[in-house]
């Protein structure tokens, strides 16, 4: 049986599944329930500075988009950081950590970009016995208007500066949580590590409007006839988050640095994918908000089963394994040729592959009068669209042409690896050594 025990920044938790800093981790009651359900760690919902806490709206905080059967695909929120008193939060954190010494407990913090503010809060957090802190440089709504959250995360110099303060006034690991609302995620990641961050976590939520109420002509969630952009999360953001995770993992400046991945992780498989792309552990929010804390039990059993099947004994065995295979387009093998193959036994004759190919691609699928669909190898560019629109998993596959085989489309023989950098059509091609 695989051991899911994961050590991240020296913090050991029984599994790599942490709850992200978010509404589910706002108070002792929830966090205790989460630990009882099996979560390996929790990032406590972001604490603000001492004094009057922030306030939240009193109308709807969440908006959503749905798939079939109202399956929640994406959620957005306009909730701010904790609206509870700082000291009450600190007391609760202290109690919970004492009762759950084997679980990771990280405290998320967001205070103004002033050294005094950080200097004031960090010792208070240190006194709780929590395992580390996470700097919330990510929230794109509300707090950003006050110069915090993503307003900091979008300025690499601020990230470095604040991270340095934290390393100065706090002795345990510092994780910097990044905003995806930026053009190149590598810049803030580099800035964080430049400030001696121990890890980065990403992604925070994406600026979004999930829906517009066409009667009221207002974005939703609608507060008294008006709406504002909120932070988008859930399964829909996973592809964006994975790319950002991979970009940091393969950036020579940050390669190998610890990453805690966040973004639409809903099943064990999502977690395994992020970890293969370099994440040491994962943080979850929307899945828990959709299904409750129990959902972690499937993640635990699923990851464990998969690791057993693959022969991985501990999570670090596969962390980052996919990173070397994330490359630039220019290095892809242009001599790798595949053709779509339709399994006629599996085909249910819906014709979606035909419509997609005929209308929007390369007219490479033939449809007979009796609805048999076959691929025209002399037209197929192997774009994979037919595979993606086919409702039957495994019905259409891309089959590789072996070296030396004839590609009927180009009339050329399949040759060994060659990429764009040496392609004759590339004006900047490097001439292969004679």
């Amino acid at each position: 049986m695989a051991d899911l025990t994961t050590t991240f920044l020296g913090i050991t938790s029984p599994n790599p599944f942490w709850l992200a800093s978010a509404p589910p981790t706002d108070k002792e009651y929830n966090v205790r329930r989460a630990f009882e359900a099996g979560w390996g760690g929790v990032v406590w919902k972001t604490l603000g500075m001492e004094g009057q806490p922030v306030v939240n709206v009193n109308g709807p905080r969440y908006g959503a988009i749905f798939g079939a059967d109202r399956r929640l695909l994406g959620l957005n929120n306009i909730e701010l950081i904790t609206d509870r008193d700082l000291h009450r939060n600190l007391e609760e954190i202290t109690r919970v950590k004492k009762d759950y010494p084997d679980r990771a407990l990280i405290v998320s913090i967001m205070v103004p970009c002033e050294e005094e503010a950080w200097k004031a809060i960090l010792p208070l957090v240190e006194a709780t016995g929590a395992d580390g802190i996470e700097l919330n440089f990510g929230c794109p709504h509300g707090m950003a208007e006050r110069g915090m959250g993503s307003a900091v995360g979008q300025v690499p110099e601020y990230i470095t500066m604040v991270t340095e303060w934290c390393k100065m006034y706090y002795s345990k690991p510092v994780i910097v949580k990044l905003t995806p609302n930026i053009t190149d995620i590598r810049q803030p990641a580099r800035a964080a590590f430049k400030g001696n961050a121990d890890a980065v976590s990403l992604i925070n939520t994406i600026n979004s409007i999930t829906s517009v109420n066409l009667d009221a002509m207002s974005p939703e969630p609608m507060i008294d006839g008006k709406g504002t952009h909120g932070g988008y999360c859930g399964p829909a953001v996973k592809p964006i988050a994975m790319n950002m995770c991979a970009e940091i993992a393969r950036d020579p400046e940050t390669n190998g640095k610890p990453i805690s991945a966040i973004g639409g992780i809903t099943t064990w498989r999502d977690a395994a994918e992020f970890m293969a792309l370099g994440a040491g552990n994962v943080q979850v929010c929307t899945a828990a908000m959709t299904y409750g804390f129990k959902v972690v039990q499937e993640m635990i059993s699923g990851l464990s089963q998969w690791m057993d099947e693959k022969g991985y004994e501990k999570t670090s065995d596969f962390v980052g394994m996919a990173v070397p295979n994330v490359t630039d387009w220019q290095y892809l093998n242009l001599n790798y040729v595949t053709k779509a193959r339709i399994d006629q036994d599996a085909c249910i004759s819906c014709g979606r592959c035909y419509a997609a190919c005929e209308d929007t691609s390369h007219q490479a699928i033939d449809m007979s009068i009796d609805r048999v669909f076959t691929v025209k190898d002399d037209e197929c560019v192997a774009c994979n669209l037919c595979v993606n629109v086919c409702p039957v998993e495994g019905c259409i596959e891309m089959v590789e042409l072996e070296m030396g085989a004839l590609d009927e489309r180009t009339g050329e023989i399949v040759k060994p690896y060659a990429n764009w950098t040496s392609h004759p059509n590339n004006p900047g091609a490097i001439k292969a050594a004679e």
Partner: protein
Amino acid sequence: MSNTTMTPGIQPGRLPGENLDVNFQDLHPPLTPHEAHVAADRCYFCHDAPCMTACPTSIDIPLFIRQIMTGTPEAAARTILEQNILGGMCARVCPTETLCEEVCVRETAEGQPVEIGRLQRYATDTLMARNSHPFARAAETGKRVAVVGAGPAGLACAHRLAMKGHDVVMYDARAKAGGLNEFGIAAYKSTEDFAAREVAWLLGIGGITVETGRSLGAGLSLEQLKQDHDAVFLGIGLAGVNALSVAGAEKDGVVDAVSFIAELRQAEDLATLPVGRRVVVIGGGMTAIDAAVQSRLLGAESVTVAYRRGADRMGASQFEQDLAASKGVRIMTNVMPVAVHGNGAASEVELEYTQDVDGRLTGTGETVRLVADQVFKAIGQTLQGAPEGLEITRGKIVVTGGGRTSVKGVWAGGDCALGGEDLTVTAVAEGRDAAEDIHKALMG
């Protein structure tokens, strides 16, 4: 009320009223909006969809389902009704299991088709609940067309003609329009007076006058109709029934299934409707199943459908056979009636076992007797009252193209016309297509 399922003879009120209410509820209850959304989500939006090809009226099924999925069931209804103005009734009575749903790729994939019939009902019910008519008439053409028979074919023809701007007079022998929709369908398939409501809604197009109690040979003649109108459409159905030519067929308790079904549909109070304690239905089509199931639902103790060929040859679909079985109807196959016994009233039906020898049905000589105080004949309907001069083949009016008969200026469609299955949806398609052809002929 003292009658029970065990009371001998043909008796009303075998079941308490509340049981009858439950028994005759909607066979396929309407989908709720959420159910409709979930069901619609299952549609793959197939290319050149098999369901659409299988539909006799060629409704664009993937499109209307997508319209439901995106929250516009009214637009979905329009898509349906443009092709099939009786889309509401067809959603209820179509044997979808042998048409659209049979060829649904989800049926191929999972043995569970998209619920096309129920989705169609959801769309049409939503639109009809708005109590407005979705189509407007074109400018009046001044042409007058007679439509004889206000069943599905006649209604579809009349509506399309009216929409094209023609004036239509629709004649029907019965006291009410609707044809088999009103008189010939099991009650649990058309609840809450739907057939009549649909006719009223359809007439909302305007330009259609309905004259009931008038039929060919009984006050109407084709010659007169031709003289008074620019075109005539015959949608007169199959008003006759095949006779049961066995000894004792004249005994009390031996009745036509279609009469029983019609009576049941028009009954104000089902508790007043008499039914036998032990019922035998002769036949194997939809009418046989409708009569058999409804007999059980009224409280008959035992009901047997006796069909002369094998189950695979039955006119009733597998779904209908399963429905009958689930209601406790026994289906006997490969038996044919040879006599009805009884002193004045039927008390037994004698059946002979049959076998198929080189495609010919022959009796084996072995017989069996079933106790029966009521015997329903459901052995087919026949063309009756077709005017002189029309070419008739195999008991049906010969038509070509868009329903043209051998007589100029006279069109025909529905069950009375040759070609196509005898289904509501087929009748609608034929009525509609004839209207298009009439329009073309009249407008040059």
